[in-house]
């Protein structure tokens, strides 16, 4: 396909950040789940702790869990700030370079936003076609994606500052408790985003985006006109 028939939707920086997000968030998710609910998620950490317990001569059962969770906790404390740093740098870059596309959709009137959100929900859940005016008004990110991204933003801020406080500040027990609660709330919000994000990208109508984000970052222009018409017009006008 000729280059002019394609549109770049994910730059190299975007894809690199997405890879880093994927790996670091996965590490935080696994290590965090273990700390959150060991009775349910002990099996995740056992394979990591078992060899270390053997090396240290600890009990292969309880020692493996202890060693595994201790490693999980250390990784969580190291990976968390790293992930936070990457996000801060990336968001700062987007803001400075004027490439923050996500919030653009929120300039639409609220009624229009809700109509778009409902149309997309019924498209995803019931397979209904999008109304023509909604389809033509779609930007780089649709309203629903932006809403759950806002949820993510709140979640990341909560887990970020509470996590740093827990790991690196000498908190009183009551403050420590509060920070753990906020950390949990932030985590749950992030997981809600994650479920929505994975659902949307694996939906048959969006699967081309997965190929783009893990490939060359480009999508067919015809597909882009169907899914992000306003964005396409904006990009083409700049060319």
């Amino acid at each position, binding site marked *: 396909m000729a280059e002019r028939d394609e549109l770049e939707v994910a730059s190299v920086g975007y894809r690199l950040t997405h890879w880093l997000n994927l790996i670091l968030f996965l590490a935080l998710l696994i290590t965090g789940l*273990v*700390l*959150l*609910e*060991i*009775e*349910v998620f*002990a*099996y995740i950490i*056992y394979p990591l702790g078992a060899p270390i317990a053997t090396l240290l001569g*600890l009990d292969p*059962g*309880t*020692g493996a*869990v*202890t060693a595994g*969770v*201790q490693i999980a*906790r250390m990784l969580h404390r190291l990976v968390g700030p790293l992930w936070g740093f990457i996000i801060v740098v990336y968001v700062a870059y987007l803001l400075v370079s004027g490439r923050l596309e996500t919030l653009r959709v929120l300039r639409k009137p609220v009624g229009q936003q809700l109509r778009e959100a409902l149309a997309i929900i019924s498209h*995803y*859940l019931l*397979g209904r076609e999008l109304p023509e005016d909604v389809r033509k008004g779609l930007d780089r990110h649709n309203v629903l994606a932006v809403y759950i991204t806002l949820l993510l933003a709140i979640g990341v801020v909560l887990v970020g500052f509470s996590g740093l406080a827990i790991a690196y500040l000498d908190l009183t*027990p*009551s403050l*420590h*408790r*509060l920070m*753990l*609660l906020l950390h*949990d*709330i932030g985590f*749950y919000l992030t*997981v*809600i985003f994650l*479920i*929505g994000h*994975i*659902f949307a990208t*694996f*939906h*048959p*109508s969006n699967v081309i985006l997965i190929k783009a984000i893990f490939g060359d970052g480009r999508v067919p222009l015809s597909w882009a006109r169907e899914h992000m018409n306003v964005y396409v017009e904006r990009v083409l006008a700049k060319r």
Partner: protein
Amino acid sequence: MVKLKFPGRDEGVAVVVDLDKCIGCRACQIACQEWNGRKALNTTFSPTFTNPRDLHADAWKVVFFHEFPLSKTLKFAEAEAAINTVEVVPVPYNCLHCAEAPCARACPVGAIKVSPEGAVVIEPGECIGCGYCLDACPYNVPRRGSDGKYYKCTFCVDRIQSGLEPACVEVCPTNVFTFTSMREATRIAEDLRARGKKVYGLSLDGYVGGRVRWIFAASEDKASRAFPAMFPETPRNSNAIRESLEGIAIPGLSLASVFALAVLAVAWWRARRTTSKSEGAT
């Protein structure tokens, strides 16, 4: 792999602490420190007799002295003498060993064990020093040691399982502590209550399992001075919200994931059917 089982509500052991018998000699505090091999702490001046001033990784039992001014009138045959004095209420204090200990529920490695007798014990070899036990404890009992691990009263579970009483119980010269079965302790405490004493530990919040295994009783006067400072009427903290949230969020988000997968599966099935139909038409 990590499973927690609490003894039943009336199972296991308990201690009734009759504060009216306590003379504040601190023999229990010393016996605890000695039996458990805890090192002596540097003493510091404090405005009260309480020393150390709070529980510590090396002081699992501390006698807290609650002081309050008291005016007394002494009556003689020909005169009355009013004197102002200070009344002292000593409260020997340690982990209360909640019936369903929140600290044990919160420990991410299962390092806090609950013995069949109901003793809630931190296994130092398994503790990773995260402090979640202190976060969960409504009485702020576990304390971080210099090795980064958390420590607290073990109910002398090693002694109990050898047929002995806890060290503090055994050494008390005035029989403040009655170590017995939970069922019998409940009966004794109810009896003390019937005789007009205030009792703490039997009807508590569900967060601690409704009761604790160290049940305190004191006369109205002493209880009104000491209980509010030591024993919260509703022993729960923000960790209870965390627990409730966890109980909703983990199954809720799991269900949401399954629902999302099911919708995705249907969407893919419809997409393939549409594709094969359109291919068939051409």
